[in-house]
C-alpha cells in the first residue's frame, strides 16, 4: 500500500503549544473584553464623571493618582488568569487516560512542560498588553495627564510577577495528583502560610521580649512569593520613599524565585511518575507541608478559643488537640477517608510541637534577639518614642543607656510603651518594650531634657504657618474650646514651654500633667497638622504665659459671638 506522508512541518512541542493556545482562545477573548471594560472603559468614564462633577477650574485629570491601583488590579487579574490557564493546561496530569495520552506523545518531559507552561502565559499577554496600551492611549487625550514611565514600569513588573506566580504555581501543579488536591494544596499553602506568619507574629508579641509593634513584620511579607510580590509591588507603586535599589532588589528576587521555581518544577516533573495521576499527591512532601500548616493553624485556633492566653498550660493542651484534629481532618479530606489516620495524628502532634518549640525559642530570647543592643559606633541615628515624646538622636548614648537598663531588668511589667528604632550603618534595629515608666524615670528624664528633644519641640512648633492657628486645652478637668491664636502667641508659647523643659519631672514621664494643649493649624504644604503640649505643675513659665493670654475669656467670646468668629 503506497501512502502519501503528511507534509506538515514537524515541531511537536510547538504544535502542542499552538493547540493549547487555541483551546483557551475563547477564555482569552472574554478576558480581553473584561480588561478593556476596566481600562480604558471604566477609567475613561470615571475621569469624565469626575471632571463633570469637579470644580469648574478642574480642567485636567491627573491619572497618576489612579495608576498604581489600576496597574495592581490588572496585575492581579492577569496573574490569576494565567494560573487558571496553567491549571487547565496541566489538568491532563490528573486523569489516568489523559496522562497516558499526553505522555505517549512524541515529546520529552521538558518540551511537554514548556509547551503547556507557555501556552498558559502567552494568551494572557495579549489582553494585558492591550490594557497597558490603552492606559498609554488615555494619556494622549489632552485633558488627561500622567506619567507614561509609571505605566511602562507597571507593564514590566506585571510580566515579572505573572511569570514568578506561574512558575511557583507549577510546583503545586506538578506535585499534586488530582485537580481537587491541587486546589486544596495551592490555597492551603498560600493562604495558610500567611496565617501561620500572623500566628508567628502573635507568638513573638507574647513571648519575644522587645519584639517591635505597629508594622507588618518582614517574615509576613516574605512568607509566600505571592504575598511578597503583591505587597512589595503595591508599596513600590504607591510609596514615595522608593529608591532605585528597592526596584533592583525586587526585580532580582522576582527573577530568582521564577528561576528557582521553574527548575524545581522541571526536576519534579521529570521525576514525576505518570502512574500518580488520580492519586492525591504525586509527591508526598506537599501533603506533609500542607498538613503541618493546617495543624499549626488548628493548634493555635483551638488553644486561643479555649484558653485565650497563650502562656497558660490549658492553651497548650488544646493546642495539641487542635493540631491533631486539624491534621486528621486535612488527611481525611485528602485521602477521602482515614487511611492515614495515624500519620495525620503524628503530623498534628508535630504542628503543636512546632509552635511549642517556637514559643520556647522566643521565650529564651531567640539567640540573643531580646538582649541585642547595637554598638554606639554602628549607629547612624536612633529615635525613641514614649508617652507624648518622640525624639531622634544622632548620638545614641542616652538611648543605649535606657535600652541597656531595660534589657538588664528584662523590662518588668508595665503598660508604658517605649519604641526604640536604630538606623545602623548596615540595616536597622527596632524594639518595643512595655515597662513601668517609674523604673526608668532617670533615663527617660534625660531624654526629655536633652537638647535633641528641645530642638524637636521647637521644630514641631515651627512646622505651623501663621494661618488658621487655634489652641484648645484641658485644664483641671475643664475643657477649653478651640481659640484662634496668632503666630506671635504661638511663638511665645513655644519659648515658655521650651524654657520649662529642663525642669521636667517624673510627671512628664508618666504623663501626669496638669494642662494639655492641642495646637491645630496648617503646615507649609497646606496640610492640616496638630501638636500636643503637656504641661506639668512646675512649668511655671508656660502656665503664666497661658494665663496671660486669657484664653478662657477668649474661648467664651469666640464661641458665643459670631462676629468675633467672622
Amino acid at each position: 500500500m503506497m501512502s502519501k506522508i503528511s507534509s506538515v512541518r514537524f515541531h511537536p512541542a510547538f504544535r502542542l503549544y499552538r493547540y493549547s493556545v487555541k483551546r483557551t482562545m475563547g477564555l482569552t477573548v472574554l478576558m480581553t473584553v473584561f480588561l478593556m471594560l476596566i481600562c480604558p472603559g471604566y477609567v475613561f468614564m470615571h475621569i469624565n464623571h469626575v471632571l463633570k462633577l469637579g470644580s469648574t477650574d478642574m480642567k485636567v485629570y491627573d491619572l497618576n493618582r489612579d495608576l498604581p491601583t489600576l496597574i495592581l488590579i490588572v496585575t492581579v487579574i492577569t496573574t490569576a488568569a494565567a494560573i487558571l490557564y496553567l491549571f487547565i493546561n496541566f489538568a491532563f496530569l490528573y486523569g489516568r487516560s489523559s496522562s497516558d495520552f499526553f505522555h505517549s506523545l512524541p515529546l520529552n518531559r521538558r518540551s511537554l512542560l514548556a509547551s503547556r507552561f507557555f501556552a498558559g502565559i502567552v494568551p494572557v499577554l495579549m489582553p494585558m498588553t492591550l490594557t497597558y496600551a490603552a492606559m498609554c492611549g488615555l494619556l494622549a487625550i489632552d485633558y488627561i495627564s500622567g506619567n507614561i514611565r509609571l505605566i511602562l514600569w507597571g507593564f514590566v513588573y506585571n510580566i515579572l510577577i505573572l511569570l514568578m506566580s506561574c512558575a511557583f504555581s507549577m510546583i503545586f501543579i506538578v506535585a499534586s495528583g488530582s485537580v481537587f488536591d491541587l486546589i486544596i494544596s495551592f490555597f492551603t499553602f498560600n493562604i495558610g502560610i500567611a496565617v501561620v506568619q500572623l500566628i508567628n507574629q502573635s507568638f513573638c508579641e507574647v513571648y519575644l521580649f522587645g519584639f517591635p509593634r505597629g508594622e507588618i513584620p518582614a517574615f509576613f511579607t516574605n512568607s509566600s512569593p505571592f504575598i511578597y510580590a503583591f505587597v512589595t509591588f503595591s508599596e513600590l507603586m504607591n510609596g514615595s520613599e522608593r529608591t532605585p535599589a528597592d526596584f533592583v532588589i525586587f526585580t532580582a528576587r522576582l527573577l530568582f524565585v521564577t528561576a528557582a521555581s521553574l527548575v524545581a518544577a522541571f526536576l519534579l516533573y521529570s521525576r514525576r511518575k505518570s502512574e500518580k495521576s488520580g492519586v492525591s499527591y504525586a509527591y508526598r512532601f506537599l501533603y506533609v507541608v500542607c498538613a503541618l500548616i493546617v495543624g499549626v493553624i488548628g493548634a493555635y485556633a483551638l488553644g486561643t478559643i479555649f484558653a485565650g492566653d497563650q502562656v497558660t498550660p490549658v492553651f497548650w493542651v488544646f493546642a495539641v488537640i487542635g493540631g491533631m484534629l486539624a491534621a486528621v481532618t486535612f488527611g481525611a479530606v485528602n485521602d477521602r477517608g482515614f487511611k492515614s489516620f495515624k500519620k495525620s495524628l503524628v503530623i498534628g502532634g508535630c504542628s503543636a510541637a512546632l509552635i511549642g518549640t517556637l514559643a520556647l525559642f522566643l521565650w529564651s530570647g531567640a539567640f540573643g534577639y531580646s538582649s541585642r543592643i547595637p554598638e554606639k559606633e554602628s549607629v547612624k541615628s536612633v529615635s525613641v518614642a514614649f508617652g507624648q515624646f518622640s525624639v531622634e538622636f544622632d548620638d545614641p548614648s542616652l538611648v543605649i543607656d535606657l535600652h541597656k537598663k531595660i534589657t538588664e531588668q528584662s523590662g518588668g511589667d508595665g503598660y508604658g510603651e517605649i519604641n526604640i528604632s536604630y538606623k545602623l550603618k548596615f540595616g536597622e534595629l527596632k524594639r518595643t518594650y512595655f515597662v513601668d515608666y517609674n523604673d526608668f524615670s532617670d533615663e527617660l528624664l534625660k531624654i526629655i531634657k536633652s537638647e535633641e528633644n528641645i530642638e524637636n519641640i521647637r521644630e514641631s512648633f515651627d512646622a505651623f504657618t501663621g494661618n488658621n492657628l487655634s489652641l484648645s486645652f484641658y485644664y483641671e478637668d475643664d475643657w477649653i474650646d478651640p481659640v484662634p491664636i496668632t503666630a506671635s502667641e504661638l511663638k511665645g508659647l513655644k519659648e515658655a514651654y521650651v524654657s520649662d523643659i529642663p525642669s521636667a519631672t517624673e510627671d512628664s514621664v508618666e504623663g501626669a500633667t496638669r494642662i494639655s494643649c492641642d495646637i491645630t493649624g496648617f503646615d507649609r504644604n497646606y496640610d492640616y497638622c496638630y501638636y500636643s503640649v503637656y504641661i506639668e505643675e512646675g512649668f511655671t513659665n508656660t502656665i503664666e504665659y497661658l494665663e496671660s493670654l486669657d484664653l478662657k475669656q477668649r474661648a467664651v467670646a469666640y464661641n458665643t459671638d459670631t462676629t468675633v468668629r467672622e
Partner: protein
Amino acid sequence: MIKSVGLTKIFDGKKALDGVEFEIPEGSIFGLVGSNGSGKSTFLRLAAGIYMPDGGDITAGGERIFNNFALKSEIAYVGDTPYFLPNATIREMARFYRRMYPKFDNNLYNRLIEIFPLDYKARIATMSKGMQRQAALITAIASSPKYLLLDEAFDGLDAVMRKVLKSILIEASEERSLTTVISSHNLKDLEFLCDRVGLIHLGKLVFSDETENIKSRIHKVQMAFRQIPETSVFSGLDVVKVERSGSIIYMIVRGDEEEIMRYIGRLSPIFSECVEPTLEEIFVYELEAKGYDVKNIIS
C-alpha cells in the same frame, strides 16, 4: 525490535512487573496475554514511554524509550480506555495526530475512515465504547508508527470489526513492517493473529515464543482401542494430560507430531488422529504442567 531486560515496575511497594525479559522482533504481531492485573497494561505503558522503569530497561531499536522524543514519534499507543481531546471529533483528533506525528499518513487515514463506519463529524465522547475504540485505532494506525501498542484492542469491538482490525494489522505488518504489541486477556482474539505470544502472570513472564513453535510442541491426540491399554504403554511419550471417555482416549502430548503418531500406531488403535489444540488449550496445559493455578490466569 522491542526488548526488555529485567524490566521492573513497582506501584506502592508492589511489583507490577518483576524482571520481565522480552524480545519482540521487528514486523511481528506480538500477543501479550494474562489475567487482569497481571502486568500487561503496565508493560505496554512502559513500551510507550509513559511510565519510567523502576528497574531494568526497555528499548526499541536499541534506544531507550522513556523521554525519547524521536523514538516516541514512531510509537503509537492506544490505551485500555482511549483518551480524546475535549469535545473532539474524529477529524479533529486526526488533525491533532497529524501535527504531532511526522509520518501521519493521510491516504491511510482516508482508507481507514472508509473501512470503519463512523460519523466523523460527531463528538467522540458521545459515541459507544466500541466506536470510541475504532476512532482511537484509526488515528493511531494512520500515524504510521513503527511500533503500535494496543491495550485490550478488541474490547468492545463486534465480530466484524475484530476481523477488520486483524486484517489491517496483518497487512500493515507485511507491507510496512509494523511491529504490533497487542494485549488481551482473551486468547481467542489472538489465536490466528499473532506471530508470537507471551504470557505474563503476577508481573512475571511465564513464557514467550512463536505461536507456531508453541503449537507444534504440544498436540491433542484422540484414539480408540478394542481393548483399553494400561497407561504405562504411553510411557514412551511426554504426556501432559490423559482423559478417557468409554473406549476413546484423549491425550495431550508434547513432542513431534509424526513421532507421536508413529508411537501410537505401534499400539494398534482402531483409529487415532492428531487435532491441533487451540491456543487457549495449549496455555492451559502448559501452565498446569508448570504448576500454575490456571483458572486464575486465563479467563
